[in-house]
C-alpha cells in the first residue's frame, strides 16, 4: 500500500501539522519507505493471538475517588504563552 499526496495532506491535517506543498514529496517518500518496511508484519500468523496492551502485566489499580490536588491556577498558567486572568487565551473561536 502506497500513500498518495492527498493522503499525506489528510494525515498532516489529522496530526495538526502544517505541511507546505514542497514538503509533500519528501514526506511521501519517507513514509512510504517506512510503511513498506513495516508491511512484513503481515507475514506473521496472529490468528487467535490476543493483542498486548500496555507494557506491563499489572492490572491497573483503583484509588479512592477523592480530590488529591488543585487550587494551583498560577502554577498551571506559569508556562502559558498567553493568558487572560486565570484562563488560557487563544484566538477568537466563535464569531
Amino acid at each position, binding site marked *: 500500500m502506497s500513500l498518495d499526496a492527498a493522503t499525506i495532506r489528510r494525515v498532516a491535517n489529522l496530526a495538526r*501539522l502544517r505541511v507546505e506543498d514542497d514538503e509533500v514529496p519528501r514526506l511521501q517518500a519517507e513514509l512510504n519507505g517506512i510503511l513498506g518496511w*513495516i508491511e512484513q508484519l503481515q507475514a506473521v500468523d496472529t490468528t487467535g*493471538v490476543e493483542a498486548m*496492551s500496555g507494557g*506491563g502485566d499489572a492490572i491497573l489499580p483503583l484509588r479512592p475517588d477523592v480530590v488529591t490536588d488543585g487550587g494551583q491556577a498560577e502554577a498551571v498558567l506559569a508556562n502559558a504563552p498567553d493568558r487572560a486572568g486565570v484562563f488560557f487565551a487563544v*484566538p477568537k473561536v466563535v464569531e
Partner: protein
Amino acid sequence: MEATHFSLAGALSALEEGLISAVELTEAHLKAIEAVNPQINAFITVTAEAALAAARAADDRRAQGEAGPLNGIPLAIKDLFCTQGVRTTAGSRILGDFVPPYESTVTKNLLRDGAVFLGKANLDEFAMGSSNETSAFGGVQNPWRRRDNQGVALVPGGSSGGSAAAVAARLALGATATDTGGSIRQPAAFCGIVGIKPTYGRCSRWGIVAFASSLDQAGPIARTVEDSAILLRSMAGHDPKDSTSAEREVPDFAAACHRSVKGLRIGVPAEYRLDAMPAEIQALWDQGIAWLKAEGARIVPISLPHTKYALPTYYIVAPAEASSNLARYDGVRFGMRVPGEDLKDLYERTRAAGFGAEVKRRIMIGTYVLSAGYYDAYYVKAQQVRALIRRDFETAFADCDAILTPSTPSAAFASGDKQDDPIAMYLNDVFTVTANLSGLPAMSIPAGLDAQGLPLGLQVIGRGFDEETVFTVGAAIERAAGFSALPQVMA
C-alpha cells in the same frame, strides 16, 4: 586521584571517610564541564549555583550524621525529566523555555537520597533517535575517537547521548536516562559505559516527558555495574502517581553484583546471529559466552523466533503512542506558540515550527496507523506480534535464567552517516528493542574494543523484575572483561 575519576561507589567511600567533600567533588565536575562541554555538548543546561548549594547542604547533612545513600554525588539528569524550577526541553524547540512547577518522581527520589544535580543532559528530540543528532540544541560528540582518524566526530548514540557522553567524559559520576527502544543501552555501548533499562514499572514515569508510554522506562547510566546498581535502587520504587508503577519491594541491587554466576543458565538466542553482523561483534559475543562458562555458568542455546519482527512492530507501536502523547503540544498551555489566523492555524503553525523532522515523521506514521480503516491492519496487528515476542521470551526463560546478546550491531558511527536513511538508523536498536516490547530488564556492559579502538557492549536480558540476576551476570562480564580503556576526550 582526580576527583572526576572516582567511581560512584568510590566517591561515596571517599565522602564517608572525609577524604573529599561534596563541594570539592561538585566543583571538580563543574570545572570539567566548563572545560569539556563546549566540545562535546553533553549538557543543554548547567545549574552550577544550584549544584554548589546542594553540595553544601549535603556536606552539612553528612556532618550531622544524616547522609542519604547518594549524599553529595554529582549527577547529570537527562533533559526529559521534569525538574522543578529548572528549564526542561526534551531536546525540542516546542517546549521553548518550559520550566516545570513540579519534580519528576525519579529525580525526587534521587534528591531524597542526597544527590547533587549538575544540569540537564542533551538528548534526541523527545527521545526519538539513535544518534543524538535530532536534538534542537545540537548534536553531542562521542568522547571516543577512531584510532586511524581522530579528527572525525562520532555520535554518542541516542537518545540518552548527553547522559552517556557526560559520564564517559568524566563530567558526572552517573546520569539518569530513559529507554524506549534502546535509548539507555545503545549510547552506553557506544560510549564504553554501563546502562540498564529496568523492568517496565520498576521506575515511575511520572514527570518524565512521555514518548511511548507502554515502552518508556527510566534507568541509570554509570561507569561500573555496581554504580548503576546503586543509582537504580534510589531511582526505583512504587509511585501512586504512575498507574503502571509496580508495587514491589526494591532489592539491594548492589549486593547482587557480588554473587556468583555458577550454576546460572545463560541463554544464547540463535536469531540474534545476523548475516550482516561485523565479525568483531560475533567474536565479542563468543568471548562473553566463554567468560561466563569459565565462571561456572551453563550455556543454553535458545530460540526467539519472532525477533526479526520486533523493529517493525516497534515502529508501529511507538509512533502510535507518540502521536497521541505529543498531541498536548498545541501552543496554548505551555511551550512555544506561533500565531495563526484561527485556532487550528495556530496549532498547525506551532507544531510545524516546534517539532523537528524525525518527530514529525513519527507523528505522521502514528497518526496514519491509528486512523480509521488502518487501525486493525497496523496497530492491532503490531500489538498481536508484540504478544508473540513476549511469549518467545516466556518460553525461553523456562530453560534459562538470563540471556546474553551483543548490545548493538556496530560501534559508534560518524555524525551524518545515517541521517538520510531512517530505516538504517532504526536498525541500531535491533538487539535492544525486544526488551522494551516485552517489558524485560536489560543491561549493556562494556566488554571490548573494535579494531578502531571503539567500545563494544554485551547485553544481558533478564526475567521481569529479576534485575538482580542481570546485575550478577553483568558484574561477572565486567570482571572478566577488565575493560579499562579510556576515551580520548575526557576531563
